[in-house]
């Protein structure tokens, strides 16, 4: 399919524009998008843009390059929606939203959502300050979660490393969720609606797991026999 046959779908949201890309080669689509924006400069100028890229698998360099090109044209990319897990991860690493609306944590979801959420996002790197990873299912981090980083999971969170940032498990109200880490010293830890602030730093950290028991957050050593 040649680039000229491709068309964009543009939809106005409350405070931003949602652009849905057709299928095609990324280079063509990228060119198409930037062209359209240039042609309709006054329409796009100053807009916040959410981009639905469909199944397109994008690397960090693709998205960051596009974000820079858009910002040169006065358009702020704030979200990238995709069916590709690779693209979702890319967007998360760049601090972009991957869904249009944040779920409201107070309202417990229907059971159907819980079943759908029983998947895990695999993050095989350290999360540094300012990074936020949000996923409706479980989140597994192979690395540290540094102070200033944030994890929000619909399900449980496992950190194979030091958890020193902010973590929210069961973010959609699931009180069965748990949080465990090799060294658990978060700035703030939440499961469903319960919040615990930073515990004291221990000299020799042991792996721990936190669960919600009778409305209270309880930390226990994380050992194979405890599951």
């Amino acid at each position, binding site marked *: 399919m040649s680039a000229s046959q491709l068309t964009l779908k543009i939809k106005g949201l409350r405070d931003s524009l949602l652009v849905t890309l057709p299928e095609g080669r990324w280079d063509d689509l990228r060119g198409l998008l930037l062209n359209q924006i240039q042609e309709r400069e006054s329409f796009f100028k100053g807009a916040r843009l959410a981009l639905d890229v469909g199944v397109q698998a994008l690397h960090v360099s693709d998205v*960051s390059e596009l974000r*820079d090109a858009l910002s040169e044209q006065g358009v702020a990319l704030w979200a990238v929606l995709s069916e590709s897990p690779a693209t979702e991860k890319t967007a998360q690493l*760049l601090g972009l939203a991957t869904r249009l609306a944040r779920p409201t944590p107070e309202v417990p979801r229907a059971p159907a959502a819980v079943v759908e959420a029983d998947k895990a996002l695999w993050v095989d790197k350290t999360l*540094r300050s*300012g990074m936020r990873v949000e996923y409706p299912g479980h989140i597994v981090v192979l690395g540290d979660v*540094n102070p200033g980083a944030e994890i929000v999971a619909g399900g449980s969170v496992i950190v194979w490393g030091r958890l020193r940032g902010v973590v929210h498990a069961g973010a959609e109200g699931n009180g069965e969720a748990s949080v465990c880490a090799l060294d658990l010293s978060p700035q703030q830890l939440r499961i469903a609606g319960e919040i615990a602030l930073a515990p004291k730093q221990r000299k020799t950290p042991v792996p721990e797991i936190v669960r919600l028991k009778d409305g209270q957050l309880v930390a226990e050593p994380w050992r194979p026999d405890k599951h």
Partner: protein
Amino acid sequence: MSTVLTIGSGKGGVGKTTAVANLAVALAASGDKVVCIDGDIGLRNLDVIMGLENRIVYDLVDVVEGRCRLRQAMIRDKHLPELYLIPAAQTRDKNAVSPSDMVRLCDELRGEYDWILIDSPAGIERGFKNAIAPADRVVVVTNPEVSAVRDADRVIGILEAEEKGTPSLILNRLNPIMVKRHDMLSADDVVDLLAVKIIGVVPEDEDVIVAANRGSPVALDQKSRAGQAFRNIAQRLKGIDTPFLALDDQGNLWQRLFAGRK
């Protein structure tokens, strides 16, 4: 082969400009050809620290906007013939330059100089993006303070996400006496959190401020400890293995005198 090296930090005032001036001087004194670019448009001060303020005719924005040729904006250093500065514009803002302008400009300098050092502004916005766009290597400067380290972590994360690779770290303004009293983060604490390679530790040193005011970077002062630390970092940048200064060896003279007798 040129290396474009950008110095960034996230937090302001941690010593980026000081590091650029001193590394530039140290590299040039070791025989390399060096150009520094002040990327802090609107708040330029690399020219002051290098003592070249009075010689500015054209600046970075003049080059980008085609009002002069690149050579015309390059100011030759007073002491070192192979050291040049491209100053920032004082009266414009960072949007006057784009990341691709910086890439083009550095490409023009590549080949002729061994080092192109870029002084990044604080923050993680446009000016920072401009400064890292052409970088082959990035060095992050931080201080042994929780907030500075947190910002360094943020910047390192951005650099990794933008596929600039993991930067190396300069820990500046370390006070060994305070570290010993457990009143200051140690180099180990900082490296433990940031998980990057440390390329130098520079002590807190009044000479830095005196030298900056005189417009003659402290790396030119053979007696200064901070100057020595910067010269060592320059060696490490060149790939020459250089031992770290024993920063606490003047902390307590008696301890040092008796250390050998234990």
